[in-house]
């Protein structure tokens, strides 16, 4: 982790911990540090700006209520926050019966390589290893796992999108995950 990244992470941790103590100023700082990241997540999964902003609103209400439960030692602050955003966005999409769209006009493409060290927020050796291990998978395995994560899709949804039988898709993902596990735990 570069010193700049470590510094950014420390500032974020402090803002989150102080938000847990109901500090509104810290909450505004937290919002300014994280809203673009969390909105990117909501937008990708919800597929449209208006819904994504409604979900983002709920995400920050949840963060305000739950920040007191954040344990700095257990997860990086951005992982904790991003997980809330991803889960909320997926809940929204499923509750509203919105079919995951193939073309998302507003959402930018996900990069397909490991981020630069200066851009990482989760950032530690584990992260580097995951990106390395993903590269070692067959293309279709890696693609299916990435689609599941970034678009918040179930097996049935990825299979439909890729026009692949459900059993085949499950097999790709399971074998990919098994290989990933072997690589990560090496």
């Amino acid at each position, binding site marked *: 982790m570069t010193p700049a990244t470590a510094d950014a992470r420390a500032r974020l941790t402090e803002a989150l911990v102080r938000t847990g103590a109901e500090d*509104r100023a810290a909450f505004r700082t937290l*919002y300014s540090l994280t*809203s673009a*990241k969390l*909105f*990117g*997540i909501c*937008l990708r999964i919800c597929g449209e*700006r208006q819904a*994504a*902003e409604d979900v*983002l*609103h709920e995400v920050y*209400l949840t963060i*305000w209520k*739950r920040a*007191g*439960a*954040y*344990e700095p030692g*257990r*997860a*990086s602050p951005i*992982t*904790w926050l*991003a*997980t*809330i955003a991803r*889960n909320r966005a*997926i*809940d929204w999409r499923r509750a509203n019966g919105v079919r995951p769209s193939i073309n998302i006009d507003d*959402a*930018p*493409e*996900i*990069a397909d390589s490991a981020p630069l060290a200066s851009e*990482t*927020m*989760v950032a530690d050796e*584990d*992260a*580097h290893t*995951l*990106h390395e291990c993903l590269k070692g998978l067959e293309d279709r395995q890696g693609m299916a796992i*990435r689609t*599941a*994560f*970034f678009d*918040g*899709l*179930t*097996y*049935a949804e990825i299979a439909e999108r890729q026009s692949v039988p459900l059993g085949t898709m499950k*097999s790709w*993902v*399971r*074998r990919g*995950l*098994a290989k990933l*596990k072997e690589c990560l735990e090496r």
Partner: protein
Amino acid sequence: MTDIREPDPDMAAAELALGVLDGEERGAALRRVLSEPGFAADVERWRGYLAALFDLWPEVQPSGDVLARVERSLDGVPAVSTRRWGWPAATAAMGSIAAALLLVLMLQPVTAPGPVPQPTIAARTAPMLVAAIMPDEKGEMVKAVYEPDSGMMRLTGASMADTGKSAELWVIAGDGVPHSLGLLPRGQGMAMPVKPGMRPMMAPGSVLAVSIEPEGGSTTGLPTGPVVAKGALSEV
């Protein structure tokens, strides 16, 4: 190397963390989270591995008024009072589920001060549901009474979680998936509104379960800690 006819490896913990399961497969994996501590730990470990992918997610600026909306919502959040029901004292002496019916009758807030909504017999259409949430090992039973017409659930108090942890209440309906109803305050009875979207799950046969979570509750939307008590809802 890999024989094509070889069965797929069991990657259920990773699949659950990744979010690809649905329906019965998801239900089965969630039941393993509840029953196998090692499995729950695997799911956590996978969540940690996959979190590295968040770094690749591109940032997009939301419109300028989202923060203002959030702040307005925070200012408008009404304080929740659990005092008006006077429940813990009234139920402290009751030891069995047989007392639940009496309890339901007692809960009619005939003398309650303030603007307590007064459910009337004539207006009631759906029967109440009760559950005895029994601890797996030691500890107190929690009694739950759910009133479908108002969507309110009332619970007796218990201290299931140690200091620094929270007891979270879940409902598991036909889909086999736990849905969070909220946190149980330590040692206090409480009244909680069940969100409209979750009310259909509050049906006879649905299971109420309590898991032990980090303070403030699970951040994943699913139980992450051990389940310490459960009980099924039934009509009275």
